[in-house]
Structures are given as C-alpha cells and as structure tokens.
C-alpha cells in the first residue's frame, strides 16, 4: 500500500496536539466560566497547526527558501486576518446568524479551492502512485471533499441572503424539485465513483459544478422559520468538508476537527428540529411557511381582546412577586434588549424576582437570544432554558412576552390540526397575568397561526414597537 509522503513524526505529533486543543476548546463551552479559556485553547491549536505546516512545508526553490512565495503566503494570511478581525469587531450581535452563514460559505469555498489545487498538483500533496496517477482512495476523498465543500458554499450563500434580508424568507418552490435534487445528487455520486476509473479533468469539474448547483437548489425552498436548522446543518457540512480534506492530506488535526464540527452541527440541527417538533427530512424537503399563510386567512373571526397601556404594565409588574420575561426574535429586531434589562433592574431593586425564559428556537440560530441578552448585561444565571423554567409559570404573577409568538402558542399542546402541533412551548398562559408586547393584532408568527393567548381574560396586549413600549414602561415605573 502506498504511504504518501514520508510522515515526519514530530509534525504528526504536533497535529495531534492541535486536534486535542480543539477538543478542549469545545469542552470549555460547557460553562460560561471556562469558555474563555476554551477559546484560547482553540487559538493555540490553530497556531500549532499553522506553524507546523509552515515549518514542514516551506517553499523551496533550488535548495533555498523561496522568499517570494513565503512573502505571498504571509500577505495572504495578513489580508485574511485584517478582514476577519475588522468584521468580528464591527458586526452587530443581531446579525450573528448572517455572519456565521458567511463564515460557513468561506470554509466551503476554501475546501473547494484546496481540493482543486490538490487535483491540479497532486504530487505536492503526496497522493500520486509511481505512474503519476492520483491514488484511488484519494480520488474518492477529493471528490467527496469538493462536493461537500461546494454544497456548503452555495447553500451558505443562500442562507446568508435569506437571513440578511437580500432575499425573501418565503420558500421558493420549483416544480419537481425533489426529483431534480435526487437526480443531481445521484449524478454527483455516480461521477465520484467514475472518477476512480478515469481521472480526467471533466469528471472533477462536473462534480464541482453540480455540487455548487445542488447547494442552491437544496436551500432555496427552505423558509425563514427553518433557518436555525439550516445554519446548524451547514455548520455540520463545513465540518465534513474539512474531514474529507483531512483524509486526502492524512492530517489528524483536520480529521479530528472535521469530526468535531460535523457532530456539533448535526447535534444542533437535531436540537432545533426537536424544538420545533419537525423531522429533519421535512425541513430539508422545505416549503414550511408557504402553505400556512393561505390557511390563516379564512378563519379570521373577531374575538375580543384587552389592550393595556405602559402604565398598566408597569403597575402590574411592580406589584408582582415574580416576573418571567419571554423574549423572541421581535425583541432583537426592535433592539429592545437594553431597555428590557433596564426594566428588569428597576423591578429587581423593588424586590421583584425577574427571570428570562428562552425557547430553543427563539431567534434565528441556536443560542442567539442568550447572546443578545448577555450583550445587554443580563446576568446568565437569570436566563433559563424552556425545560428548566416551564414549571414556574403557574407560580408566576406576570409573564412578559416580547417579540415572541409561536413559542408561546398553547395550540401546540391542544390543537392537532395546527401546523405547530407537538412543538414544545412556554406555558405563559399559566401565569396570573400575561403581558404580550406586539406591534399590531394583525401580524402572525412565522408559522402563520393565530395565538389563543391574545384572547384570554388574563392577557393584556401591549400594542407598540417593542423598544418604545419597554422604554415607556421604564418611564412609568420611575413615577
């Protein structure tokens, strides 16, 4: 069996250490206390991997270091570092999902480019046999790497455009798309299989082209509500792409990282699907949120509801023993998190217990709401996950729902015909009073269904922009 380039044992050891650093980086995230140390492990691992590669693969020309190439490499790193750091400093926390989607697309693109250069210059990667042909195993790995990388890239570009609002959140349904998608996927796999027999350029480039197109086709029909799953899924793909390239390069750091990132994205997709009671297949098949709109229009009978003022809300909360705040994406859009924290501070000073309840799919990506609250200086030990706080609503005086809707809808528990039936929801209706901040009575949530909470006797609707309403409540509390 061919062994590729002779492996330098020190380099192999260094890559293994880099891989372990990456494991520790994720391990650190088990608690906010250890998380910053974890991130430093990640940086250390990356430094080890990059330095090891630079030392063992420095550019040589005629027995001496090729300084031109070395400088070009350093410039390339410098350009990337400048763009990366500037973006990381400037990005608003509300825009995190877009940023992550953009980053995913870059991992995908980098994987494609590496696979292409490995195809063009296989000898440099030590994947040729004595006759100068690319090794059979390497051909499969390269084919898979370029395919997953290209799907990650084009899929993430669509996800970015949808999250960033450049493209409508509504799913775009092509006729016969399932057949088309399956045919393209089968074509890619067949070509990769054929690639082991024939290493002509056209096979490799067709695989690359088809994979770019399937990435677009797969994500276009998926609606805005399912974006948390899509972002997690693309996270997973970016990992598998890195792993596939790790196989090609026989590099343990890349393989370990790829496996970690791949599992991470897969687990997050699973958590998101479970939080919406949707199967992964139905998310991938797409179309959610397109049909719901038409069904919402027919049964619109006028039901009575109560409107409250900021003063009413302030009074109710100041009299309460415990207030649970339920934020959703609407809060983030209105940038109400800072005013909300101020409101919480006033209440705490007056001896009211204040807690935050987060639904896993509140926001546009896993954990998005937690970051936004952390940014507004809400201590993380006041923020609770659904299963940890749901039992407390019955003993709570006020549930303050702001910018969330579907995640509080009791129809998910009772109405079998509802599109969100079976989805775990926050039991806000069990609180003595529900204060529901909403822009108007007309709008419906992502799922396009009406929420019975609006019409309950113990609910008071606070119709206004989330940020303005909270600011008015804060003012009223001061009096």
């Amino acid at each position, binding site marked *: 069996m061919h062994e590729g380039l002779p492996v330098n044992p020190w380099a192999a050891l260094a890559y293994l250490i880099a891989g372990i650093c990456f494991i520790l980086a994720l391990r650190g995230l088990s608690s906010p206390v250890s998380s910053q140390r974890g991130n430093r492990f*990640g940086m250390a691992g990356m430094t080890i991997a990059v330095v090891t590669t630079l030392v063992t693969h420095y550019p040589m020309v005629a027995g001496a270091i090729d300084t031109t190439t070395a400088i070009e490499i350093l410039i390339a790193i410098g350009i990337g570092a400048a*763009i990366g750091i500037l973006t990381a400093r400037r990005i608003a926390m509300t825009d995190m999902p877009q940023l992550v989607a953009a980053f995913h697309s*870059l991992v995908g693109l980098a994987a494609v480019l590496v696979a292409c250069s*490995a195809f063009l210059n296989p000898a440099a*990667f030590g994947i040729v046999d004595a006759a100068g042909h690319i090794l059979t195993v390497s051909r499969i790995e390269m084919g898979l790497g370029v395919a997953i990388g290209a799907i990650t890239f084009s899929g993430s570009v669509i996800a970015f455009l949808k999250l960033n609002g450049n493209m409508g959140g509504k799913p775009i349904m092509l006729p016969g798309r399932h057949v088309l998608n399956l045919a393209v996927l089968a074509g890619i796999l067949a070509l990769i299989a054929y690639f082991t027999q024939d290493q002509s350029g056209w096979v490799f480039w067709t695989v690359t082209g088809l994979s770019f197109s399937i990435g677009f086709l797969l994500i276009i029909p998926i609606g805005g509500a399912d974006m948390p799953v899509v972002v997690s899924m693309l996270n997973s793909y970016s990992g598998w792409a890195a792993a596939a390239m790790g196989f090609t390069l026989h590099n343990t750091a890349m393989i370990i990282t790829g496996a970690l990132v791949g599992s991470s994205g897969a687990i997050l997709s699973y958590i998101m699907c479970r939080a919406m009671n949707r199967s992964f297949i139905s998310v991938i098949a797409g179309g959610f949120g397109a049909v719901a709109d038409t069904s919402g229009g027919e049964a619109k009978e006028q039901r009575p509801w109560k409107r409250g003022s900021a003063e009413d809300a302030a009074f109710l909360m100041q009299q309460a023993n415990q207030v649970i705040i339920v934020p959703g994406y609407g809060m983030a859009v209105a940038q109400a998190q800072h005013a909300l924290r101020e409101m919480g501070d006033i209440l705490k000073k007056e001896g009211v217990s204040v807690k935050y309840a987060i639904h*896993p799919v509140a926001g546009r990506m896993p*954990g998005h709401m937690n970051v936004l609250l952390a940014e507004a200086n809400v201590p993380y030990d006041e923020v609770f996950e659904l299963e940890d706080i749901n039992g407390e609503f019955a003993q709570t005086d006020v549930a303050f729902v702001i910018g969330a809707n579907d995640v509080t809808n009791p129809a998910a528990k009772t109405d079998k015909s509802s599109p969100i039936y079976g989805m775990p929801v926050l039991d806000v209706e069990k609180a003595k009073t529900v204060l529901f901040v909403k822009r108007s009575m007309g709008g419906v949530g992502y799922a396009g269904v009406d929420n019975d909470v609006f019409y309950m006797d113990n609910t008071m609707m606070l119709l206004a922009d989330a940020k303005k309403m909270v600011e008015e409540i804060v003012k009223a509390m001061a009096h």
Partner: protein
Amino acid sequence: MDFLSILSIFVMACFVGYYVVWSVTPALHTPLMAVTNAISSVIIVGALIASAAVGIGGSGAASKWLGLLAVVFASINIFGGFAVTARMLAMYKKKVR
C-alpha cells in the same frame, strides 16, 4: 498513515465530538457555532501546502494561486471566528451580588 488508521481516528473523534457537544450549555450555542467555524478553517493546512508547493507547468501555477486564495478565505474565518467568539464570551457575566 494508511487509510484504516485515519478512519479509526475519524470514528473515535466523532464519538468524542458527540459527547463533548452534548455537554455544551445551550446558552453558549451561538459561540459554539462561531468557534467551530474558526476551527474548521484548519483546512488552511491544505491551503498552505498548496501555496508552498513547487508546481510544474500551468496547472502547478494555478494550483499555487488557488492555494493562496484559500489561505485568504481560511484566515478570514480563523481570525474572524476566534475574535467574534472571544467578543461574545466576554459578554457573559454572572449576577453581581
């Protein structure tokens, strides 16, 4: 390294990943995505090898430039990913008592 040893490392790492990721607190799922983004850019290793390699003929030069381009993209991700993760993690504070 032969294919089987690499596969063994990969399978073991998948198991490690499974358990480590389940232990991540849901509150940190966004930083988790940002940091996994940064570390999956370890693909820069391949990009560096491609950039540094001596190419033969036109395809060798193309291979080098593709590698350099990949170095740029991966670096954006590495620096951006770690920096934005650090920025987010610094925001998580405990209650002041």
